[in-house]
C-alpha cells in the first residue's frame, strides 16, 4: 500500500503545484509591461498600431486578465497547452519536439556526473589529506564556480578549434548519411562537450557531498567493527560504507532535477543544443506566455517525477526510509 499511497498523495500535490505554477506565472507575465505583440513587431522590423492591435485581438490579449487566465486554465485541464503566438505552433508540439534533446543531455550529464562524482568522492575520502584529495577538491571547486558559458566556450576552443575532435554546435550533422550507428556516433560526438560542461557542475556537488558523507560514515562504529572483523579495506569501503553514504547523494541527485532546466538553458545556448532550455529562454525574451507556461508545466512534471524516483531509490538503498507502514 505504501508506494501507491505515496504516489496518490504526490499526484494531489502535483496538481495543486501545477495550478499554483500556472496562476503565479500567468500573473507575473501579465504584470510586466509590453507583450508578445511587441516582440512580433520587433522581428518584423516595426509595425504600426493597427497591426499591433490586430495581433492583440487575434490572440485574445485585449481581454481582461481574469478572462485570459480562466481560458488558459480551462484549456490546460483539457490537456491543451494552447497555441504559441510567437512560433505559430501548438505549444505541446513545440515542447515535445524539444524535450528529447534536453532529456538526453541532462540525463547523460547527470548519470556521468553521479558515477564519476561518487568515485572521486570516495577516493578523496579515503585519504582526506592526500594529493588525490586536493586534486578532486580543486576540480570540484573549479567545476562549480566556473560559469558554464565560459567553460563551454573554453572546451569549444580547445576541442573544436585547436584540435578538431568534436563539432561546435547542434545535435547532429545533417549532411551525413548512414544507418543507425552512424547517427548514434554522430549524436554522441555532438553530445560530448555539452554533457561535460553541464556535468561539471553536478560533478562538483556529487564529489563533495559523497566525500563528506563517506568521511562521516568511515568514522562510524560499524565501519570500525567491520575493519576489526578483518574485512579487506575495499570490502569495507564499497560494501559497508558506501551504501550508507549514498543516501544524501541520491537525495541531492533528485533535487538536481529541478535545476535541470536552469542549468541546461546556458549550456544549450552555448552549444546551440536544440532543447527546451533554448526554447524557454527565447520564449521568455519573446513574452510568449503559452510557451513559457507550457515549459514550466513540463519542468514541474519532471521535478515531481524526479522526486518520486528519488524516494523510491532511497527505499532501495536504505530500508529505514518508508519503513513498514
Amino acid at each position: 500500500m505504501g508506494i501507491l499511497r505515496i504516489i496518490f498523495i504526490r499526484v494531489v500535490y502535483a496538481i495543486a503545484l501545477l495550478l499554483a505554477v500556472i496562476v503565479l506565472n500567468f500573473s507575473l507575465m501579465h504584470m510586466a509591461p509590453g507583450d508578445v505583440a511587441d516582440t512580433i513587431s520587433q522581428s518584423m522590423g516595426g509595425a504600426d498600431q493597427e497591426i499591433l492591435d490586430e495581433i492583440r485581438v487575434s490572440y485574445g490579449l485585449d481581454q481582461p486578465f481574469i478572462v485570459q487566465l480562466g481560458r488558459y486554465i480551462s484549456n490546460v485541464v483539457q490537456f491543451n497547452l494552447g497555441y504559441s503566438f510567437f512560433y505559430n505552433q501548438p505549444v505541446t508540439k513545440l515542447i515535445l519536439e524539444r524535450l528529447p534533446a534536453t532529456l538526453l543531455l541532462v540525463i547523460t550529464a547527470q548519470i556521468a556526473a553521479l558515477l564519476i562524482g561518487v568515485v572521486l568522492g570516495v577516493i578523496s575520502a579515503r585519504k582526506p589529506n592526500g594529493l588525490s584529495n586536493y586534486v578532486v577538491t580543486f576540480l570540484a571547486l573549479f567545476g562549480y564556480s566556473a560559469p558554464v558559458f565560459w567553460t563551454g566556450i573554453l572546451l569549444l576552443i580547445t576541442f573544436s578549434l585547436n584540435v578538431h575532435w568534436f563539432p561546435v554546435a547542434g545535435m547532429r550533422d545533417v549532411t551525413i548519411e548512414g544507418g543507425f550507428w552512424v547517427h548514434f556516433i554522430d549524436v554522441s560526438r555532438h553530445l560530448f562537450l555539452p554533457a561535460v560542461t553541464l556535468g561539471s557542475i553536478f560533478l562538483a556537488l556529487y564529489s563533495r557531498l559523497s566525500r563528506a558523507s563517506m568521511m562521516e560514515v568511515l568514522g562510524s562504529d560499524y565501519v570500525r567493527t567491520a575493519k576489526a572483523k578483518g574485512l579487506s579495506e575495499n570490502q569495507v569501503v564499497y560494501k559497508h560504507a558506501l551504501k550508507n553514504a549514498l543516501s544524501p547523494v541520491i537525495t541531492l541527485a533528485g533535487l538536481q532535477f529541478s535545476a535541470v532546466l536552469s542549468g541546461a538553458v546556458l549550456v544549450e545556448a552555448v552549444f546551440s543544443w536544440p532543447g527546451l532550455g533554448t526554447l524557454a529562454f527565447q520564449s521568455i525574451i519573446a513574452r510568449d506566455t503559452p510557451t513559457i507556461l507550457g515549459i514550466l508545466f513540463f519542468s514541474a512534471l519532471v521535478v515531481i517525477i524526479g522526486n518520486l524516483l528519488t524516494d523510491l531509490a532511497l527505499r532501495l538503498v536504505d530500508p529505514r526510509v518508508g519503513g513498514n507502514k
Partner: protein
Amino acid sequence: MKHILKGMFTATAAAAVLATGAIAEDAPRKGGTLITVIATNVRNLNPAVQSGIVTGYPGAQLFAAPLRYDEDWTPQPYLAKSWDVSEDGLTVTLNLVDNAVFHDGVPITSEDVAFSVDTIKAHHPFKSMFAPVTSVDTPDAHTAVLNLSKPHPALMLAMSGQLMAIIPKHIYGDGQNPKTHPRNTENVVGSGPFKLVEYKSGEHVILERFDDFFIEGRPYLDKIVMRIITDPAARAIAYENGEIHMGAFESLPRIINRLKKVENLTVTNEGYGGIGPLDWLAMNTTKGPLKNVKVRKAIAYAVDKNFIHKALMEGTASNSLTGIHPDSPFYNANVEGYDLDLDKSRALLDEAGFPMNGDSRFSLTIDFGWPGVKPQVEYVKAALKKVGIAVKVRASADFPTWAARMGKMDYDMSWDTVFNWGDPVIGVHRTYSSDNIAKGVWSNTQGYANARVDELMEMASVETNPAKRKALYAEFQEIIADEVPVYHSNTLPYHTVYNDNVGNPPLGIWGTSTPIDMTYLKN
C-alpha cells in the same frame, strides 16, 4: 531559356553577371552543400506575411520576387522578364517569364502576382510598400498591371529582395489567415530557386535545388543547410574550424575583428545597403529641455563620435550622418557632422537658458532595449556629464518593456537601431513623418514635426525623376541633421563571413535577403 536574355536585356544581364564577379573567377562549379548559419530561430518562412532578416534569407530562396537588384542599385529582371512604368507613373506592367512554375509544378501566373500583392498589402507590416496600389489587372497569364493612385517610385525596390515574395494562390488562397497559415513552415510551395526539405524550429532549415527553376542552369548549389546557432562565440568557432561556410549579420566588433585575422575567411560589410541598419541616439523632442533644438545640438557636440567608432565599435562600423544609410544612392554626406566641441556645446546650453546650477544644468534619462548597446548608453552618460547634463541610465527588463516605453514616448533619450529597408519611403519616412508620431516602436517616437520635412517626404514619395528625387532627399537630410531629432552615430556593423571555398557570395544590396542562385562551392 535563351529568349529571356534577348534584346534589351542582354546588356543588363551581362552587366549583372560582371558586377557579381562570377566571370572573373573560373566557371561556377555545380553541386555541393553550402552550410550556412542563422543567428536567431526562424519562426516563419513566408516573407509575404513576415518581414525581418531572419525570414528574409530562407524566404528569398524559397520565393522569387519580380525583380532583383545589382550592386549599383539598378533593377534587373527576375520573375518579371521586363517591366514598364507608364508616362504618368500610374501603371506598372510586369511581364512574367512564361516558363516559371511553383515547387509543386503549377505554373506561376499573373493571378499569383495579384494575390501576392493583396496578401502583402493586408498582412505585411510595411504598409507604405504597396499602399498606393489600388488594384492589379491580369490581362493575360503572364502580364500583371499594377494600378496606382499616385506615382510610387519606391515600388521598384519593394518588388525585389524579400519584400515581394510571389506566393501560390492555390495554396494560400484557401481561406485560412495567411499570417498563421500552416504552409508558412511546413510543405512550403515556393517560386524560388530552392525548395524546402526540412524545417526544424531551433535547429535548422534545409533547402535543396529546385530542378524546374525558371532560370536554366541555376541554382548552382544542390543544397543549402541553414543551421541555427544563437551564440556568437560558437558561430565564430564554427566559421574558423570550417564547420560553417558562410554566415551573415555578424555584428559583435570583437568577433568581427577576430575573424578578420583568420586566414581562409573573408569578413566584409558589403551587402547591407538595402537593409540599411543604423544605430542612433533618439531624443524625445516633446519633453523638457529636449524640446529646444539648441539642447539637442549641444548633446550632439558633446558626444565624441570618434570614441564610439574606435573604442566601442572597434573600427567595424561606418559613420552615418543622416537617417539614410551611407550605401544608399540617396545618402547626403554634406550635412552637419557635429565633431566633438565641448565649448560649443556648453555655449549652446547657456544660450538655451540652462546655466550650470551646482554641478549640473538639468538631468535626463537614457534608455536601451537590448544589452548589446549598454556601452553606448554608458558612454553618452559620461560624455554629457562633461557639459553639465546629468544622465540616469534606465534599463528595461527586456525588449517588450523597452518597446512599450518607446511606443508611448515615455523616455527622454534612448539608443535605437532602425533599418532603412530599401527605399526611404519604406523605412526612413516612418521616423520623421509628423503623422506617424508615437505609433509603436520604430515609428516617429521622437515626436518630431517639421512641415518642410513632411512636404519633402511627400514630394519625394511621388517624384519619378531620380535626380530630382535625390535633391529632395538631400534637403530632407540637411534639415534633420540640423534639427537633430535623432543623433546619428554609425551604421550597425553587420558583416558577412565566408570561407575561401565559397564562390560569389551574396554581397549585393540585399545581402542574403536575395536568391543565392549564383553562389557556388569551389570544391
